[in-house]
């Protein structure tokens, strides 16, 4: 089976949010919720500066904390390695929302937890996720990390610096950031407040 993942090249990303808006439209994400958002942080002092533009979303972890906490089995991993929610089994208890160290989930008022699906409905049609397709800076690569001939595997192999968010959590994210602009790696992570 495939092991689907995503690369985000931070040396290319300009934080324009085309991905975030495409996601909002494609998935008709309700106001006040987001499946994909951008952080922007400056590092350094004038004039020796850098800025990190960093899109964040569900990491489709290989070891996802949101799955074992689910009391109904609504949160699950697909054989392709996607972390998904079965809306019909979900009782909107919020355990997964609390368990996710990336704040990637929200409760949809219709009565279920929701988040980035890597646009599984598009993948099923052979398309790229909406965020990948629209990115005007070619910052994103989506594909099968287990296929050595896939673009994602080749890009990863050739890449310089690689980081994931909060590696100390042991979640093994499959959203991998390339070329963090700061020498110290990804900027400090803080909890997102909407």
């Amino acid at each position, binding site marked *: 089976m495939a092991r689907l993942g995503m690369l985000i090249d931070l040396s290319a990303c300009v934080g324009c949010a085309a991905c975030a808006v495409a996601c909002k*439209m494609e998935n008709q994400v309700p106001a006040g919720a987001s499946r994909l958002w951008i952080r922007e942080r400056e590092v350094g002092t004038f004039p020796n500066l850098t800025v990190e533009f960093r899109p964040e979303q569900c990491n489709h972890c290989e070891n996802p904390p949101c799955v074992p906490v689910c009391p109904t089995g609504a949160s699950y991993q697909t054989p392709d390695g996607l972390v998904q929610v079965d809306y*019909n089994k979900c009782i909107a208890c919020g355990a997964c929302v609390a368990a996710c160290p990336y704040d990637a989930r929200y409760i949809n008022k219709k009565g279920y937890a929701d988040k980035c699906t890597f646009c599984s409905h598009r993948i099923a049609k052979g398309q790229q996720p909406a965020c990948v397709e629209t990115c005007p800076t070619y910052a994103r690569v989506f594909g099968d990390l287990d296929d050595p001939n896939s673009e994602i595997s080749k890009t990863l192999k050739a890449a310089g610096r690689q980081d994931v968010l909060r590696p100390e959590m042991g979640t093994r994210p499959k959203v991998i950031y390339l070329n963090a602009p700061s020498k110290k790696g990804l900027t400090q992570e803080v909890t997102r407040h909407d």
Partner: protein
Amino acid sequence: MKLERRSFLKLSAAAVGAVSVGGAATLVSRAKAAPWYTQEVRQVFSICENCFWRCGIKASVVGNRVYKVEGYKENPKSRGMLCPRGQGAPAQTYDPDRLKKPLIRVEGSERGAGQYREATWEEALDYIAKKMLSLKEQYGPESIAFFGHGTGDGWFVDFLPAAWGSPNAAKPSVSLCTAPREVAAQYTFGRAIGGHEPIDWPNTRYIVLIGHHIGEDTHNTQLQDWSQARKNGAKLVVVDPRFSTAAAKADRWLPIKPGTDTALLLAWMHVLIAENLYDKAYVQKYTVGFEQLAAHVKPYTPEWAEKETEIPAQVIREVAREMARHKPKAVLPPTRHTVWYGNDTQRMRALYILNALLGNYGREGGFYIAMPPYLEKYPTPPLPLEPNAGGCSGPAKAESEPEGYKPRADKGKFLAKSTAIQELIEPMITGKPYPIQGLFAYGINLFHAIPNVPRTKEALSKLDLYVAIDVLPQEHVMWADVILPEATYLERYDDLVAVAHKTPFIELRMPAHEPLWDTKPGWWIAKELGKRLGLEQFFPWKDIEEYLDTRLQSVGLDLETMKQMGTMVQNGKPWLTDWEKENTLPFGTLSGKIELYSEALAKAGFDPLPVYEPPEAAPEGFYRLLYGRSPVHTFARTQNNPVLMEMEPSNSVWLNAEEAQRLGFKAGDYAYLVNQDGVREGPVRVKATQRIRKDAVYITHGFGHKAKGMSLANGRGASDSYLQTRYTLDPISGGAGLRNNYVKLEKAPAPRLKSVVQILKERRA
């Protein structure tokens, strides 16, 4: 172009299957929530309208709603990708705040008081036509001015005024944006730069951006190409008083003192010539005036420039040498918004001359030569006037007016031939050189585009007729006598868009569904008005489909075929070598070459070589007001779009962190911005940052709306335009230099506003 039937069935089956697992109660609610893409989706080709890059898009439509738009590969503007504004643009069509019916200002009520009654299209158009004809009789056709912006502006700013007989037609994209660079390009290369800046990004090795905000002005293809160039290993130098997004990606950032760019350009030329680093063969073959240029730049050493620009002489020298090392694949692209300090044509001339010394115009890795596609006009009887408004691809051509017609009201104030929109306001107040008593505003935001808002308001209050054609109840719209609600870009056809490009092309906008409410497309409004004005002969086509079909016949197509294609691409002649094969050169100057020294400017009494003028100093205690773009907003057009406003609900004022500390502003604090004339804007959040010099502050353009009917936009952030009560007229291009305005910051309370999300949640409930 429907989804294939089989995949559609498969998808709906999956959705139904999933739902049936749930209980009876959830069955109903979740069946209702079946995502749009599981339904029958039609796909329609169109052109984005959320900025004027005009990307070709495919709209996914279910019933009377577009859920998603995407680029498509065959379109050279989008190439299958879109920026955030394009992605979010459909949300405007379903904005409950839209103008929904024609409105007529209540008789006896004041302009700006916002009192209106609903009217039929018939009544509204009759009202306008009657007033126009009476103004024509009393003052002449030139007494009505036509302002507009957007893909539909051709009907109201080019075609209608030319048919009607008024030369006073203007677009903000000229004198409030591109005029200096376009006029400078004409005097240097004898060609336009054009709306799609013709840089050969894929092949360039060294890029120098001066005040050019790629990544913040998300012009889609430009952002793609620039990103690709960087991936290919091109070096990037960014000259900007602010650590812009582009600066964050740069190999070198030169935090220049605002307004001193020409000094830097002259010093770079000095180094290239003094150190013999310029492209001698190119200069000899394709340019005139090198000797004069060499003598002219001799005194402008890097040491001299360091004093003006605050960039170390050594850095200036190094960058010049690096440019030279990469020539001709080193390029200094012209930015779009070039109306900065009032001497802007000369700065743009300096930029082009430097490019010419690098030998890059018409060569790979530099500027390609853009050609317009072949496409004929619809054969109407000859119009009394030539369309005069120009556009972002350059000035108008009309040199003189036919007998019996008055010259444009701003003629003689500056050298260029195109109309300067801000210079047409004064005649509305003074009646000089002749009265302008009527105004059409199509798509343009009069208060967020034209500097000196108090003057604009005074002018509006004096008019005999003011007509606004728009989709939203913007503040200036609610001053009009008659408001005509236009259908949005997803609901209408427009004229074909023909783009000058490396591969010239034509693209089509067609409606995704019928106009919502009682709104009408621009072409229909123009034709119906034309009929009432006795101009039927200029609108001989039955409807827009016949009009488009006829034009498309001239390139061997028809409308039905084009509807399946969206875009038609033609061949171009991008390189000098393509022209030389035909024994010609592309330069439309008097000499037929690139004019380093401009004889034409000398004859007109201007400096034939660019001269540096130091910028005016800010008054004590004030910061220079700089402004730019947010990647998710366009001008003042998108601040009521629910999706884009959720992404970025307000602007903030960038203030150097040390200055913020000195003034006592902490994170999260708000300020009023007060300009040199006492105009106050805000409250606006203070962004204390390392990313800007101490002598300037910066805000993104387009916020600070004061339109009660725009429930998301109203009252959020600060407007740079309202703070631009002054401008410096560029005597060559007619551009209004906007960066000679200054502000100080005063502490302000946080604004008491419902959050955008709160308003959107209440709408849903």
